[in-house]
């Protein structure tokens, strides 16, 4: 009997410890919303280094990128997680868009193929996430098929979500419009590039995952 109790306590402790150690924080969203820029901001703020390269051409991140054991602190609390940066999710990937952006045809086609595989990969990884931050471009229409599909699927999977309306430094940005589109979620307007309102973002992260 004592052994059974011991085993039970061990199991509970292990599962608690394991869960805490393995919090996976996923960055999701359409291409060029600023997922990697935000990942870099988080890594720079807390680790002093970048996570990935960013580009004006869409689908720069085409493979899952993971940064392990990032500890952030806010108001005396600490939160440790593994940050997972994912490829942008899209319904249409056309190499000609990359050619227009200055890539050569061969490179553009390769990028399109990798980006397609990246979308499948990003969706597959969704089940591995404990918490997700959806990064939307606040200068763009929030009511797109991609955005609605991502938000709906996270809701169906009961994964806690924080929505970030990025690029709030730009004139065209409309954070209120993003909030109006997804009223059931906490939407925080930030500029990942310049760090505007980033403290609010960290607070939101603690409220969600802490």
């Amino acid at each position, binding site marked *: 009997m004592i052994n059974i109790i011991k085993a039970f306590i061990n199991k509970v402790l292990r599962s608690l410890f394991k869960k805490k150690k393995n919090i996976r924080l996923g960055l999701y969203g359409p291409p060029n919303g600023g997922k990697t820029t935000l990942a870099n901001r988080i890594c720079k703020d807390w680790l002093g280094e970048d996570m990935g390269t960013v580009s004006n051409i869409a689908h720069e991140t085409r493979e899952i990128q993971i940064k392990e054991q990032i500890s952030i602190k806010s108001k005396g609390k600490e939160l440790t997680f593994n940050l997972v940066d994912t490829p942008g999710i899209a*319904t*249409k*990937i*056309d190499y*000609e868009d990359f050619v227009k952006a200055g890539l050569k045809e061969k490179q553009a*086609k390769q990028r399109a193929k990798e*980006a*397609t595989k990246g979308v499948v990969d990003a969706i597959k990884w969704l089940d591995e996430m404990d918490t997700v931050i959806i990064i939307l471009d606040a200068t763009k229409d929030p009511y797109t098929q991609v955005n609605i599909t991502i938000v709906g699927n996270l809701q169906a999977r009961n994964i806690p979500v924080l929505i970030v309306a990025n690029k709030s430094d730009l004139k065209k940005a409309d954070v209120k419009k993003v909030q109006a589109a997804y009223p059931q979620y906490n939407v925080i307007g930030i500029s990942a590039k310049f760090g505007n309102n980033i403290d609010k973002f960290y607070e939101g992260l603690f409220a969600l995952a802490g």
Partner: protein
Amino acid sequence: MPHQCVRCNTFYEDGAQELLKGCSCSGKLFFYIKKEKLDEMKKITEGIKLTDKEKEQIEQDVFDLVGSEIDKDQPVILDLEAIKVLRPGKYELDLVHLFKKEPLIFKIEDGKYMIDLIQSFQKFSKK
């Protein structure tokens, strides 16, 4: 259920010899197409004229997308409803289908291969 050769676009009925031995054009990769989508697919196929080089490229790209675990010498049936390859480098993705986690590739009854992309990705993620 109909199948379509990725290389030459010929349609084959379920159980056709070509699905086991390979198409007469020597292609070994077939798209699996649901009956209700057959007419739609035929229209799309007729509307897009691809050169032999483009067809070869699409075949290669599909192999790359599916993963390197496929033996290229064996016929393989692909259920790529979730991903449409319109031309080399032009893709349309059905997110709802992808999010449902339905396998992208089915094996035919008599075939030799079972390729489940979701499974392959899981293996990949554990490495």
